[in-house]
């Protein structure tokens, strides 16, 4: 991202009429110029109505406390009525999944899978994650530039996901592929340019997993996600669309998010060398640094709700049926709650206080697994005294949902 376009974006953000601000344009996320627009909304109209966008009309909720109020009020702000992302699909075209359900069905399905990321099982996974982190770090090339996203972020999170699904390990990159396809909003000129193409690829994902399901349903219950889904009363009778919906949820949730915090963490440290020095001098700061990385990255930029009845948020009247976007990415930069929010500070006072996992009943189920992976990665990177040099700017993905990277060029001295 050039300094020029950063300056231009700031000028535009300050001069454009308030009612014409549209923070949803994926391009603003790809070129990292969305920040001054959120800054202005937080200052001048924290709950803001955009009447026209490529995703239709929507409300933006941009401040920390307002976001928390919407997120914890699931009786009024539904995840099921319109789904959890800004783009709309008709009911028959959707893939039902538990994060996009309201109670009571949400509760039952979530409880089916949550034991896999509960504290007792994380203790079992720690050794495995550490051995994989070590193998990945030790195999990185020396003296040549490589893509950190491919070699580390994707590799580590995809291996983890393969384990959680007990998915054929050698074919694990299929999971990465399906994850990327699932989070694509089809646009002309992109590899996935139509909804039909996206749906066709996801049908392949369903077919593959149906094979695994059939294999496991005939065996004793095992401790992997597919077996858990196949044997639980709340999920064993799911239709194919719902099975696929829950697969996509678990794949994206377990893959695309931590991947981007792994990349973001290295990028932030490279831009804030004093923080990296501090961390090297005191590895006890790693858990706090991990939380700060997750706040600063905000791997999912938003979650969407649909108002079931009229409601007031931040003084604005929201009508039943309105689309409400909680911009976690903006709330995490709210100076009313987070001190010096635009600074990356690994030893800030309340590092766990951030919106990246959401709040309320839909709060990220895998949050402790995400933190565990990041903690072990940083422990092993410091242990090895790896001198990683980021040799160029990251490439970002064109999405207002997955806030992430496709490339970060890195070099380790030979």
């Amino acid at each position, binding site marked *: 991202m050039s300094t020029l376009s950063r300056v231009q974006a700031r000028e535009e953000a300050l001069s454009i009429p308030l009612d014409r601000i549209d923070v949803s344009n994926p391009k603003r996320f790809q070129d990292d110029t969305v920040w001054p627009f959120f800054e202005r909304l937080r200052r001048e109209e924290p709950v803001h109505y955009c009447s026209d966008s490529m995703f239709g009309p929507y409300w933006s909720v941009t401040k920390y406390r307002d976001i*928390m109020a919407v*997120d*914890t009020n699931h009786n009024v702000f539904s995840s099921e009525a319109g789904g959890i992302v800004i783009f709309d699909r008709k009911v028959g075209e959707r893939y039902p999944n538990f994060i996009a359900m309201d*109670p009571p069905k949400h*509760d039952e399905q*979530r*409880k089916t899978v*949550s*034991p896999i*990321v*509960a*504290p*007792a099982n*994380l*203790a079992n996974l720690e050794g495995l994650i550490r051995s994989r982190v070590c193998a990945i770090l030790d195999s990185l090339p020396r003296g040549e530039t490589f893509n950190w996203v491919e070699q580390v972020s994707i590799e580590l999170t995809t291996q983890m996901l393969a384990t959680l699904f007990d998915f054929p390990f050698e074919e694990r990159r299929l999971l990465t592929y399906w994850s990327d396809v699932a989070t694509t909003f089809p646009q002309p000129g992109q590899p996935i340019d139509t909804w039909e193409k996206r749906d066709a690829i996801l049908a392949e994902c369903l077919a593959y997993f149906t094979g695994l399901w059939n294999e496991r349903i005939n065996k004793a219950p095992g401790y992997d996600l597919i077996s858990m889904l196949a044997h639980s009363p709340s999920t064993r009778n799911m239709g194919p669309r719902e099975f696929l919906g829950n697969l996509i949820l678990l794949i994206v949730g377990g893959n695309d998010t931590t991947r981007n915090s792994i990349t973001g963490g290295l990028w932030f440290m490279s831009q804030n060398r004093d923080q990296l020095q501090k961390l090297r001098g005191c590895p006890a700061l790693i858990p706090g640094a991990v939380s700060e990385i997750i706040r600063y990255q905000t791997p999912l930029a938003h979650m969407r709700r649909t108002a079931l009845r009229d409601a007031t948020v931040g003084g604005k009247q929201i009508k039943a049926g309105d689309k409400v976007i909680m911009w976690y990415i903006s709330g995490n930069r709210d100076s009313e709650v987070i001190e010096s929010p635009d600074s990356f500070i690994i030893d800030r006072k*309340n590092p*766990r*206080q951030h919106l990246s*996992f959401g*709040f*309320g*009943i839909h*709060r990220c*189920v895998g*949050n*402790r697994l995400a933190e565990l992976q990041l903690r072990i990665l940083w422990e092993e990177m410091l242990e090895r005294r790896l001198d990683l040099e980021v040799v160029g700017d990251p490439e970002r993905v064109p999405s207002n949902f997955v806030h992430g990277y496709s490339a970060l060029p890195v070099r380790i001295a030979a």
Partner: protein
Amino acid sequence: MPRIHFVEFGGREHLIDVPAGTSVMQAAIDNHVPGIDGDCGGECACGTCHVYVDPTWLPKTGTRTTSEDELLNFAAATQESSRLACQIRMDDTLDGLRVRMPEGQH
């Protein structure tokens, strides 16, 4: 000043003096008692200050609120005596309160 006995998952005990009006969650955070995270800062929005209240103290700590109950529904290893520590405010009637922590917050 009322006191709380915190018992870590591994059994280690911490006896903490707490000014009246402080929540049990905040008391743990302020005194660096491990085992309580309190991610949301006490808003009853995250479920990461899950504790088991000693049965003899349970009636004195009141009852779960609706949102507290919803979050505990998703916590790992929830029991009858489970509460969110941010929803218990200390006063003299709770002097000597005993709470145990689960294996982890989630």
